[in-house]
Each structure stands twice: as structure tokens, then as C-alpha cells.
């Protein structure tokens, strides 16, 4: 409720945004009676960077290998042409 006050947005809409942030690991929420206090998750952003770096390295390695596969395919294709 308090978090929604400064925004021109309904409280349910703010709740949906918070749910996305929570599922992304960027905030942590707990239950205190009817309140759901939030705090930033200190490691959340660093972990995303780490994950993206791993993805980038894995893709780059595969695509460099794919370059070689494609280079080997092309002579065969030219042979098939009239």
C-alpha cells in the first residue's frame, strides 16, 4: 500500500509489478500481518549479470563452431547448382 502511494497506478497494478520483481529475484518480500514489506535483494542483480555472461560465452562458442559448419556446407551446395 505505502509503495503504491507515490505512483499514479492502482494498488493491484503495483502488486503485479512487485510480483515480477520478486520472481526475477530482485526484491524479497515477507508477510507481517496484512503488510508485505519489500526490500532489495542484494545479490539479485549480480546473479543476473553472471547468468547473462554464462549465456553469452556459451552462445559465442557455439556460433563460432557454427561458422565452420556453414563454411563446410557451402562448397557442397555450389556443386548442386547447375
Amino acid at each position, binding site marked *: 500500500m505505502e509503495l503504491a502511494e507515490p505512483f499514479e497506478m492502482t494498488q493491484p497494478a503495483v502488486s503485479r509489478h512487485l510480483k*515480477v*520483481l520478486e*520472481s*526475477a*529475484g530482485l526484491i524479497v518480500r515477507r508477510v507481517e500481518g496484512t503488510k508485505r514489506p519489500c526490500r532489495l535483494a542484494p545479490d*539479485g542483480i549480480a*546473479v*543476473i549479470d*553472471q*547468468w*547473462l555472461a*554464462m*549465456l*553469452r*560465452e*556459451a*552462445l*559465442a*562458442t*557455439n*556460433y563460432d*563452431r*557454427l*561458422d*565452420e*559448419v*556453414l*563454411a563446410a*556446407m*557451402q562448397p557442397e*551446395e555450389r556443386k548442386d547448382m547447375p
Partner: protein
Amino acid sequence: MSKMTLKTEGDRHVVVTRRFAAPPEAVYRAHTEPKLIQKWLLGPDGWTMPVCVNEARPGGKIRYEWTDDKGGGFHLTGEYLELVPFSRIVHLERMHLPDPTPDNHVETRFEPDGTGTLMTMRMTLPDAETRAAMLGTGMEHGMEASYVRLETMI
């Protein structure tokens, strides 16, 4: 030369672009023909894909199994949703680590770029739990092979 870009799009997606010297038909075939896939979709040196099922038609199944030949390995399953030959592929996939990760929805486009191809792949950004599981797997395999093949989640 930086041929690849990778960026997040909103809260839920990752967009990767990569240019290839070959025409779209060749790049598309390399993504859908098992004999070609097995040559490059491998991750670190030393890993192989002994099982590669790829039924490139709507509703067709995907199953990739990787091994490091030292007892390490895991697999991915998926289904095709849409295919437009040589230009667009939409599919779902999940890694089994061994529990299945949430479905990753992937759209891959192949566009002519001069004499080559511009590939654009848009995939789901996995949730925090899945990222942690994948990083854990990466570190575990990383001891032996420098890092895990992440392509699999794509």
C-alpha cells in the same frame, strides 16, 4: 570483430543477434538437421551430442542429449510451434537438470544480410530459481570443462 549482441528486453526476454557469412537457407538447415546440429550445438570442448532428435514440423519433437564421456550429461526436450522454411522458427524447450526447468519460448528469425544472414533469437528470461539451477550446473561442469553448455536452454 564483434558479431554477436545479447541484451535483455523488458523483464522477461533476452534477445540475441548474430551475423553469419552463409545464406539463410544454410543457417536454417544447421538449426533443424540433426547431422548438422550435432556438429556445433555442443558447448565446451569435449562434449558431444550422441542423441539428436529434431522433427522440424509444427508439433514435432526436439530431444538433445549431451555427454562429456566422463559420466556427466543432461538433456533437453522441446516441441516446435511454427516453422517458416529458411526464415522463422518458434519452439518451446526445457532443460532437465534433472528436474525440468520452466518452458523457454524461443523465436528464431533468419534474414538475408548482404550475402549472409542476420539471425535474431528472442527467448524467455528464466526466473531466479531456474537461473540459479543453471548457474549451479555451470559451476559443477565448469570444474572439468570450463563451463556448461547453456545454449541448451535456448
